[in-house]
Each structure stands twice: as structure tokens, then as C-alpha cells.
């Protein structure tokens, strides 16, 4: 039996949020029309007897209010709730994807008008809470912050190489200790062949 049905039977206080890849119109090149039939994700949760709401995922206030209300239902009534937030993926799937190979720029442009950021911007400006000067200043400040963080991070060394072996388990088992020692020996012997200078030395690790 699928997981959502399980959560209802076990009184799980789980908030299912369907947005992202499942309901932003595309999974890489595949449109939702090729992913499923029937009335979206919401109809499926309702089919399992789970309280469901579908909303405009590009409306910040709708999403906030619905999530707040859904959370209260979840906790008060000890049951799962599903929110289906309708949206659209404007960007490419990843830097390896060129979405012009499977959709038109006209389609993307159409949905760009509906961007949640643009809509919130319009609302704030309309209500005298924001203006183009504040926008410019904020963008410049944000860009500067990001670049500072980026350059700062670039200059920092990566964690020590021994971190390759940690956190597989809570405590390192004996066989991994042996592999860690063997790796250390090998890297010391062949240090010119590995990018050791990019990584923190073991005794300098935090």
C-alpha cells in the first residue's frame, strides 16, 4: 500500500507538499500530461481519504495561509494533509539541460509573467512598501553578499581527507579504520598525484 495511505492509518502528522518536480509542469523533458492522467495529485490524496487542498503555488500569501491552516489540522487532528501547489518550472532542469529542445520560448515567457517573485513585487510596490530604488539597492547588496561569500569560500580549504570515511556509521567500524589508514599511507606516498593542497591538513581540522 502506498505511503500516503499508510500515514492516514497510522495517524501520522505529515504535511505532504506537492510542488517542485511533481507539479511544476515538467520532469526534465516530460510534461505532466505524460506523467499521469486524472485530476493531478490532489485527486489521489482525496482518493486515499486524506484531507487535501489545491492552491496557486505562485501566490506567496495563499501558500503561507494554506500551509498554516494545514499544519493546524495536522496537529489538532493527528492526520496527514496534502497541499498541491500549482506552479511552473521556468528554468532548465539543470546546467546540463537545454529546455528549448522540448518546449517553446513562448510558453516559458507566458509563465514567467506568473512568477511568484514578480507577483509579490507588484503587490508590495502597489501598496507603497517597495520601489525601484529599493529594488536596485537590494539587488546590488545581495549580489555583493553572494560574491563575498563565494570568494571567501573559494579561498578556504576543503575538509580533511579523512572525512571521506566518517559518518558512514555513527562510529567508524574497524574495517573502515583499516581502509582509512591504507588510504592515508597511499596518499602520503603519492602526494604529488592528488590535490592534497586543496584540503585541510588533518591536525588543522576543526
Amino acid at each position: 500500500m502506498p505511503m500516503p495511505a499508510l500515514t492516514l492509518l497510522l495517524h501520522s502528522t505529515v504535511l505532504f507538499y506537492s510542488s517542485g518536480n511533481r507539479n511544476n509542469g515538467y520532469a526534465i523533458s516530460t510534461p505532466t500530461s505524460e506523467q499521469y492522467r486524472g485530476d493531478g495529485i490532489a485527486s489521489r490524496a482525496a482518493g486515499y481519504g486524506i484531507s487535501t487542498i489545491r492552491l496557486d503555488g505562485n501566490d506567496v500569501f495563499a501558500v503561507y495561509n494554506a500551509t498554516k491552516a494545514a499544519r493546524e489540522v495536522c496537529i489538532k487532528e493527528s492526520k496527514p494533509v496534502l497541499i498541491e501547489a500549482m506552479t511552473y518550472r521556468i528554468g532548465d532542469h539543470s546546467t546540463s539541460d537545454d529546455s528549448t529542445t522540448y518546449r517553446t520560448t513562448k510558453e516559458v515567457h507566458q509563465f514567467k509573467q506568473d512568477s511568484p517573485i514578480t507577483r509579490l513585487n507588484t503587490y508590495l510596490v502597489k501598496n507603497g512598501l517597495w520601489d525601484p530604488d529599493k529594488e536596485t539597492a537590494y539587488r546590488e547588496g545581495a549580489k555583493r553578499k553572494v560574491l563575498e561569500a563565494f570568494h571567501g569560500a573559494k579561498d578556504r580549504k576543503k575538509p580533511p581527507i579523512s572525512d571521506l570515511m566518517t559518518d558512514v556509521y555513527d562510529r567508524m567500524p574497524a574495517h573502515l579504520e583499516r581502509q582509512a589508514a591504507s588510504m592515508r599511507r597511499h596518499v602520503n606516498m603519492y602526494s604529488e598525484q592528488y590535490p592534497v593542497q586543496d584540503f585541510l591538513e588533518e591536525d588543522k581540522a576543526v
Partner: protein
Amino acid sequence: MASALSYVPETAPSDFGETTKMNLFQSINSAMDVALATDPTAVIFGEDVAFGGVFRCTVGLADKYGKDRVFNTPLCEQGIAGFGIGMAVMGATAIAEIQFADYIYPAFDQIVNEAAKYRYRSGNLFDCGRLTMRAPCGAVGHGALYHSQSPEAFFAHVPGIKVVIPRGPIQAKGLLLACIKDDNPCIFLEPKILYRAAVEHVPVGDFTLPLTSAEVVVEGKDVTMVAWGTQVQVLREVCNMAQEKLGVSCELIDLRTIMPWDSETVIKSVNKTGRLLVAHEAPLTGGFAAEIASTVQGECFLHLEAPVERVCGYDTPFPHIFEPFYMPDKWRCFEAIKKLINY
């Protein structure tokens, strides 16, 4: 390692006819083109295959053969496998694509409990032998935990399916066509780092290479080395290093089919050399090198000059920034050769 990889192109046997320059994804595309041209029941399906696939393995095939023969599936590996098994049982040649081998696990139950056991549980009344599942596998330099895995050992442990991994374009086309034509469900794992990097002159026509047949890629007399996929290229370099720096002559074997594997070729070689190195990207413990080592110590015990060396990924998830230290690279393999010689 990604930047250091250099693919040594091979020459196809002349009796395979006219050749043309192809990289790995083009040779795989060519194999599927041949399959769909010669077998009217053949279909290709998987995530994003219609527009050409995320690695371009299916480019042009939907246009050429139509949307009812090359089509997208929903994002559901369990469904892709289940659907493929059903199609194969009903007499169609089903070529399923799993977008990354790292994503194959939702299909594991279908592969293990349905596909692998279909013939056995029905006393040969029914089978899904016309199913082939393809998936990109292996390290690519930046793939991290979920775009780098080599899951061959999981499937080698399941009687009833075949597991095949090519080392380059000519091998890929011939072995994939063999899998498609083979009457058993096959898992064909494609080393993704070779998709663009491996280029050679590949026969344009219909040809197959034998399954369950390991190939001696480099002949030698002092040490036997066994690998598959990208690792064969790494060991080619190790052959040269061993010869130049140690005066040691290595015999390099590409296993090609992981299951059922050609133990005869490996045993014959180890009985000649007395020393064995097996290398793979997948983690050491329970990896397929363990199976090979176990068989060899049983069959070649009195011929062995040293214990079998295994150079593998460490027993951790495939790392992100630590990839250069994790890989069974030529330096680690070279050290293993020294150990074998100096034992």
C-alpha cells in the same frame, strides 16, 4: 581522474563490415537503431527518451520509428521495469532505459522477484527473456552519491538475469545487440564517463559480440588483471607503467559479462601468471572482485604466487569532493602490482 582519462580506440574485426566514427552514446544509439529496424516488435521506453535522452542515446529514434515505438514513461522505475517485463512476456522486444543506475532500486523488486524468476517459477512455460534494461553507471568526476554508482554486484547475486558492461563503443554496440537478442532478461550498464570520451570506428551494420565471454585485451605473462567498463582503460595505463617501471608483463582481461561470467578465461590466465589483480569502482566488501577472488583461489590454489589483490572503492557511499581519493586509480593499482610481485 575525469580529466586524466584517455580512451585508447580499438579496431573492429574487418568481417563486421563498413565502419564510421562514433562515440559511446552514438554506438548505443546505432545498436538500438539496428534493433528497431530489424525487429518490428522492438520498442524503447524510459524517462525522457523521446527527445533523445539525457545522454543523447536515443536521439532521432522517435522521429525515425514513431512515438508508439520510442516513448516516454512516467517517473517511475518500478513501473518501467514492470511494464517492460509485461511487454517481454507478451512477445515484444522491450528495451527499457533507467536514467541513472543509481535510480534502479525502486525497480529492484520487479527485477529480482519477477524478471529473474519468471522462467524458473513457471517451469519454462513463460519467460521475459526479451527484456533488456539499460542504465548509465560509474564515476564521472562530479557525480557524487547518486550519479556515480556501479550496482553490478547487487544484480550478479540474482540468478536468472544477465549483467553486461562494455569498455568502449564497438563493444557496447555488439554487446547491447547481443543482450537485446538474448532470451534472458539483461541489465546493460553503460559507463557514462565514456559517452563522449570514447571514440572509435564502429561497424555500421548489425553485429553481436558474445556474452559470457571475457576478452584478453593485452597479453602478458607475469600478472593477470581483471576489470570491466572504464576500469579497463585505467588498467591499460597500469600495464604500461608496470612494464616501464618494473619490467613486469601484465595480462589484461575485460570480463564484459559480469553474470554469468567467463571464469574459464580468467582461470586459464591465472594458472599461467600465478598472480591476480581485480579492480572496480564499486565498494570493496561484497563487490564482484570478491566472487572472482573466491573462485580463483579454489581453482588456481597451487598456481598462485601471492594472494589475490582487490583494488576497489572504499566501503563508503560514493563521495563528492573526495572522489579523487576514493577511486581505484592507476596509482593504487600500480601499488597492488608491486605487492603481487614482491610477495
